[in-house]
């Protein structure tokens, strides 16, 4: 199902920045902490102090290798850092150390899974490279000054550059989400768009048909949520369609997205574009990542979302359920634990994604500090399957497990949730109910089968909800079908 606006098809590529969760910065032994008071997370290098030199962080490089391998990139044994120059108050040295002609990873791909309304897609990656972040400028409203905080300056970043393989705004968001999931699986970044540990720029161009050459592209900068990413691309497509349909030409430009007006706005055109004057970083020899290192990291990679999703589908889960579970590594691991504890996949998925996830989200808790253990859920499912408790009782038991953090079986025992499935015992109760409800029995036999619910309710009332509804129903079938009981008085 292709995305077409007024006969134009978008071609989209994303440049994603991901802040790595290392203890220290990319090129200096300065702590990286988010949300601290301004200029408290700095060292001499962070300030671009004369005489300081960059020394790369091994952990950051290892994280970079992880992402490169997870996306199937070629990891280059030799890569180089380079300097990218521009003047900006938040850029301490007047240049950013990045990788230019010789990135550590090239090629690779990200698979976007299918959903109900979208086919699976493969988005190719051009490259991934390492670089250092800039600080932060704040514009003071109503004053003629801006304030600069260098806490973030020098933080380690990966930039992931896709081929222009994306064909709709929704697909862009889906790609971004899949990339985020991969990054989180790898444990290399919080990858949180709101906090800015995952950021995105989008390149957009239009063409009439899939066979045409690419049109002139424009780059939308700083898209900091999935919603704005999608909206901004939609807005940019509208802007370019209007230009082209009006007989104009799209001019290569850098844009920002105005979230209030829901419009993209040109910041500068190609003619005004900066000349970054890249050249190889002379303060560091080439970076060497040897085969032994690559193989060790490969051996330590966790199961990746695509593999996991496949495994869930094979276990009989729906695409939707597999997608929900896989999107969150913690959730999926918890689910795996429930299954490992003996539960079947479908009820396990239901309990984990509906009941537990809902409660945890409401309480802003993570799976790590969930009061309900995976073994608890497996046990609960077992109790229901064995007919020990009813589905309704199970929900109540679950709530108590969540609040009290003790085993479901103990709660069932303590609070008398054990279901009565003994046919003999229940038949006496059913007979008693029918005896006490002659009018309703009359109505039922006269064809008004709705009153059956009334009988069930009465049985449940008398058994304090512990009657096995299946057994009750079959007893009702038997006794209501039987000839009217003889009554001595009549």
């Amino acid at each position: 199902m292709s995305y077409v606006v007024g006969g134009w098809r978008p071609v989209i590529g994303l440049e994603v920045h991901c802040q790595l969760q290392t203890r220290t910065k990319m090129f200096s032994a300065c702590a990286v902490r988010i949300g601290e008071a301004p200029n408290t997370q700095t060292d001499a290098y962070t300030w671009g102090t004369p005489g300081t030199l960059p020394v790369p962080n091994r952990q950051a490089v290892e994280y970079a290798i992880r992402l490169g391998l997870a996306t199937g990139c070629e990891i280059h044994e030799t890569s180089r850092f380079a300097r990218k120059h521009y003047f900006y108050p938040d850029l301490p040295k007047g240049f950013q150390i990045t990788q230019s002609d010789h990135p550590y990873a090239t090629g690779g791909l990200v698979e976007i899974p299918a959903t109900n309304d979208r086919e699976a897609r493969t988005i190719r990656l051009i490259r991934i490279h390492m670089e250092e972040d800039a600080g932060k400028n704040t514009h003071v409203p109503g004053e003629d000054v801006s304030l600069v905080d260098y806490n973030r300056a020098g933080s380690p970043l990966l930039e992931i550059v896709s081929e222009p393989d994306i064909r709709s705004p929704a697909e862009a968001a889906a790609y971004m989400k899949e990339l985020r999931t991969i990054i989180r699986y790898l444990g290399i970044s919080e990858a949180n768009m709101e906090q800015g540990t995952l950021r995105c720029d989008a390149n957009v161009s239009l063409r009439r048909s899939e066979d045409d050459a690419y049109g002139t592209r424009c780059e939308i900068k700083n898209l900091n949520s999935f919603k704005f990413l999608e909206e901004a691309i939609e807005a940019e497509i509208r802007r370019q369609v209007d230009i082209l349909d009006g007989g104009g030409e799209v001019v290569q430009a850098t844009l920002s997205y105005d979230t209030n007006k829901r419009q993209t706005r040109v910041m500068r055109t190609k003619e005004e574009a900066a000349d970054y004057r890249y050249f190889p970083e002379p303060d560091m020899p080439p970076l060497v990542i040897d085969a032994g290192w690559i193989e060790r990291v490969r051996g330590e990679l966790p199961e990746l979302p695509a593999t996991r999703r496949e495994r869930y589908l094979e276990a009989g889960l729906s695409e939707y359920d597999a997608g929900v579970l896989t999107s969150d590594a913690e959730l999926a691991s918890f689910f795996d634990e429930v299954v490992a504890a003996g539960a079947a996949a479908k009820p396990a998925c239901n309990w984990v994604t509906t009941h537990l996830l809902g409660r945890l989200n409401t309480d802003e808790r993570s799976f790590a500090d969930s009061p309900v253990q995976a073994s608890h859920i497996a046990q609960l499912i077992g109790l229901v399957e064995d007919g020990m408790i009813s589905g309704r009782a199970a929900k109540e038991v679950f709530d108590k497990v969540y609040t009290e953090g003790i085993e479901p079986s103990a709660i069932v025992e303590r609070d008398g949730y054990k279901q009565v499935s003994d046919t003999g015992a229940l038949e006496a109760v059913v007979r008693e109910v029918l005896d006490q409800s002659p009018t309703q029995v009359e109505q039922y036999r006269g064809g008004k089968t709705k009153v059956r619910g009334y009988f069930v309710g009465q049985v449940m009332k008398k058994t304090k909800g512990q009657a096995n509804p299946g057994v009750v129903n079959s007893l009702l079938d038997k006794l209501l079908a039987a000839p009217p009981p003889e009554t001595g008085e009549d």
Partner: protein
Amino acid sequence: MELLGVSARELARLVRGGEVSAREVAQAYLDRIGQTEEKVHAYLARLPERALADADRVDAARVRGDELGPLAGVPVGLKDIFVTRGVPTSCGSRMLADWEPSYDGSHVRRIAEAGGVLLGKLAMDEFAMGSSNENTPFSPVHNPWALDHVPGGSSGGSAAAVAAGSCALSLGTDTGGSIRQPASLCGVVGIKPTYGRVSRHGMVAFASSLDQAGPFARDVRDAALMLGVIAGHDPNDATSLRAEVPDYVAACDAGISGARVGVHRAALEIDGLDADVRSAFERSLEVLAEAGAHLVDIELPHFEYAIATYYVLATAEASSNLARYDGVRYGLRESRDSLLSMYEATREAGFGDEVKRRIMLGTFVLRADSYEQYYGRAMRVRTLIAQDYTRAFESCDLIASPVSPVPGWKLGERVSDPLAMYLADVFTIGVNLAGLPGMSVPGGFSTGSPRLPIGLQLIGPRLSEPRLFAAGAAYEAATSWHTERPPEVSS
């Protein structure tokens, strides 16, 4: 005791043995500075309190019975490019005139750990860009041998202070000849080590792939002593080499007998090679031969392209390294209403002409549309130049050459012609481009008046400093140039 005429090695020995206190030595040098400075102006900042405190620390350590380092009580001056905590480090620029660093660089730390006493910070061309020490908003340095002459540059203050006897040892930096050329013009020993031999951490950067710190001394063995202190791997500099540091002083005794000394004859035919410089060089070759060296002719096919290559690469790196001086975080700020005008006004006021010229040139060669033609090509020619030396060292152990094509010139004589100034780096620049060690030792004097020193350059393969010291010491033993002192500042 006459302390000023004593070598750094001897001073350290006397202090270690308790024959003289570090404080006495420091005071003698502080007094000497008082006499020479009004004539020479080598010091941008004198630090008498710091010097005496350093000296007292050494004396206290001796009294405690601590083992004292190789520079125990030796008074040292540092080019003002070396980052010194709490001491203004101007790099010869208005931009950093009031900058007080928050940390000590590796050189300051290593010298302090070795027991060295810091006398002050020495004058230089702004951001180490220049060959005469005139590129600075501060007062120019005067050559101790002829006070109306330049001391060379950019480490002019470091060379002049050692020549004037106003410090026992000093440190300079060499990007295209900035140690060897002033050493030559001031008649002292100066060595630029192999690239990476000495850390660059705590040295204000000019051209990162070429910059290297090194010592100035009155003789080869003192230079060897100082290099032994500052050399060695530093985890704060990713380009510093891990190779072990040999005993350079001991290496001075190895002699030159049997060594093959290469001479690039074609280079002696360049325009502008002074006749006195040429004849001093020819005599030096005879001295080396008499000391047992074999002279062999070598070729350096890309020699003539070194200056052009250098001025592309060094200015490119400089334009990058100096981008941080924008008035935002430290140093000079010219306050303005808009950010752009603050940047421009700060950099206009903070940088001198030569620095601006090089930033402009460096910016030009790195622009996207000129990169391949200039920067990319120069990087390839640099490879060829380095290969020339590698090939030359297949047939020789050392290369001998002049240092500067001319002896010192008069202050103000050449300031108006930047290209002519650049061309004077012809003999020194290839060494930086190839990352090799090179040393200037006193090698004679000009014949006219004033009588000006002329240096002899010895160049070796990577990490061949021991061989250079051996050759330099052998040459020194056969000559007396290094024993002469400038008459105008003699006490």
